[in-house]
């Protein structure tokens, strides 16, 4: 059975949802989402530490969507906005949040991404710190401004494993779903 975005989205969009979005991930959208979530986090009396972590992870998650989104081929485009991505922020319980993101990915990039996440998940806190510092100091920013540090930073700040799945959409494209718990 092929992957159904609406199904996926409605499953995510349940519980205590702070914000749910599916559509184009643009710079303005990122600004708006950050503003809305920040205001909501201010209203809920969560610890400042958690608020900051959620904000940080949200920034990196959105910018990963912004930088690493693969466009679907034209014939499939009709049903999706350009730079299509999904973002859902859920409050699991007091001071625990889940940030879910989803985007299309070309099947030829899956191995690279999967290896990267598995590697990150296998590292201790200290090893993550070393990896972060190594990439920071030795890898150049891409022309788009991505640094290859986003996922490492997310894992480091949350101290939790990155949960992910790749769902087959058609021959060439998969839907990449990433879930991060901030606690």
């Amino acid at each position, binding site marked *: 059975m092929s992957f159904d975005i609406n199904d996926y989205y409605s499953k995510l969009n349940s519980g205590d949802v702070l914000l749910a979005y599916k559509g184009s991930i643009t*710079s303005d959208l*990122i*600004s708006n989402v*950050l*503003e809305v979530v920040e205001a909501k986090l201010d209203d809920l009396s969560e610890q*400042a*530490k958690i608020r*900051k*972590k959620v*904000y*940080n992870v949200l*920034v*990196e998650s959105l*910018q990963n969507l*912004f*930088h690493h989104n693969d466009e679907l081929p034209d014939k499939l485009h009709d049903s999706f906005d350009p730079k299509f991505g999904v973002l859902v922020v859920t409050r699991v319980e007091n001071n625990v949040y889940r940030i879910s993101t989803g985007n299309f990915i070309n099947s030829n990039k899956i191995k690279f991404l999967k290896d990267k996440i598995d590697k990150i998940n296998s590292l201790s806190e200290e090893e993550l*710190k070393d990896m*972060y*510092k190594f990439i*920071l*100091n030795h*890898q*150049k*920013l891409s022309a*788009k*401004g*991505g*640094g290859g*540090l*986003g996922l*490492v*930073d997310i894992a480091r*700040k949350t101290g939790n494993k990155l949960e992910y799945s790749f769902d087959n959409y058609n021959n060439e494209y998969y839907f990449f779903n990433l879930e991060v718990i901030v606690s």
Partner: protein
Amino acid sequence: MEAITFEGTAKTPTIKFDASNGVFEIKGRSIPENSIEFYKPLVDWLDEYAKGPLDLTQVNVQLEYFNTSSSKCILDVFKKLENIHKGKSEVIINWYYEEDDEDMLEAGEDYESIIRVPFKMIEIVE
């Protein structure tokens, strides 16, 4: 040499690098999607300043948030400062972090371990 100043925005920090008193400030949020555009003029300005720096340059970094794209550009700025410090002038980086913001303190310590410039970690108590 003229100071370089930028007003802060929701995604970029307030910048004031003043060559006349050697006090450089980076304050606010640095979360642009592409930070190279934002930081390039600063790095270029520092290249000019490095030709005739004051005896003491004090750099105040007070960031509330910064993204990983900015983290590399901030490192580039610090590397320019490191070069100035290697010469006859002294550079001090004051790294401010809010009370309990361990992530921001740790980020400062990461830089401190990479850059050979004295850092002072300063906790902002409300």
